[in-house]
């Protein structure tokens, strides 16, 4: 992944708050916090104001992703533990495999 070094000047209070979160273990370092914050801000802005977004593949993807998640939330979510969901997927994998391949000579 190509990267670009950026130098930030931020208010001391914001810096102190960031340090507090890093020390509490929420982020490994300041760069990780900054990356997470920028991603979150971009995502929220474009979700709230689609006209702000250029129609790039990535932004369109994020909107579609959010639309799917919203449908799932409104349907009440998956309502399973991770292990139950994995068990469902194992069963579905076997079903799909049987339908596609098991009957073949």
């Amino acid at each position, binding site marked *: *992944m*190509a*990267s670009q070094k950026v130098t930030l000047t931020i208010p001391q209070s914001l810096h102190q708050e960031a340090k507090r979160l890093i020390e509490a273990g929420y982020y*490994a370092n300041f760069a*990780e916090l900054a*990356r997470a914050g920028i*991603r979150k801000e971009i*995502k929220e802005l474009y979700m709230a104001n689609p006209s702000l977004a250029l129609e790039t*593949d*990535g*932004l*369109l*993807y*994020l909107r*579609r*992703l959010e*639309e*799917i*998640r919203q*449908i*799932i*939330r409104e*349907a009440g*979510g*998956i309502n*399973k533990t*991770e292990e139950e*969901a*994995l068990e*469902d*997927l*194992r069963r*579905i*994998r*076997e*079903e*799909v*495999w049987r339908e*596609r*391949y*098991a009957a073949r000579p």
Partner: protein
Amino acid sequence: MKTFDGSEKKFGVKDTLLVLDSNEYVFGLSELKGTSVKLLDVLPFVEGLKVIVPSTVLDEAARNLSYIHSILVAKFNDLIYSYEKFSVVSDEGLPQSLAEEYQRLGLPSEADARIGAFAEWVKADFLVSENQHFLKGLKTTAYQVIDAAEALKRIEANSLRGAG
């Protein structure tokens, strides 16, 4: 959907190729697991990365999502087919001998073995899964098996590069 004849090289010479197991899509879309959610979220921001989607995995994830709401099948297909980072590849032509080899490599279920074999067949660098059968049982040197948490760590560290 692309077809794959086994002789094709990587789709992009410098791209890192990931195969995500169906559980990553289901966990990430249903927000069941935070690391899977984040992995789907950050994909647009990772340069040099391609996700190869086995047609079987696409069907598995879509079928699972259909139990939540029928409209999700079309929405999920739109998401995958319309985004340039994803390439859906049919696994119809996967050599049976390679699938059988993966049964010997630690995936006794034929259905699991086909997914393991598929990742080698398309010359993937990583298979990302929360399935412990893959994470703990599979012994292959063709690619690395990691979970979403490990994939995210490597993306953050800029070290999501080829296996080996």
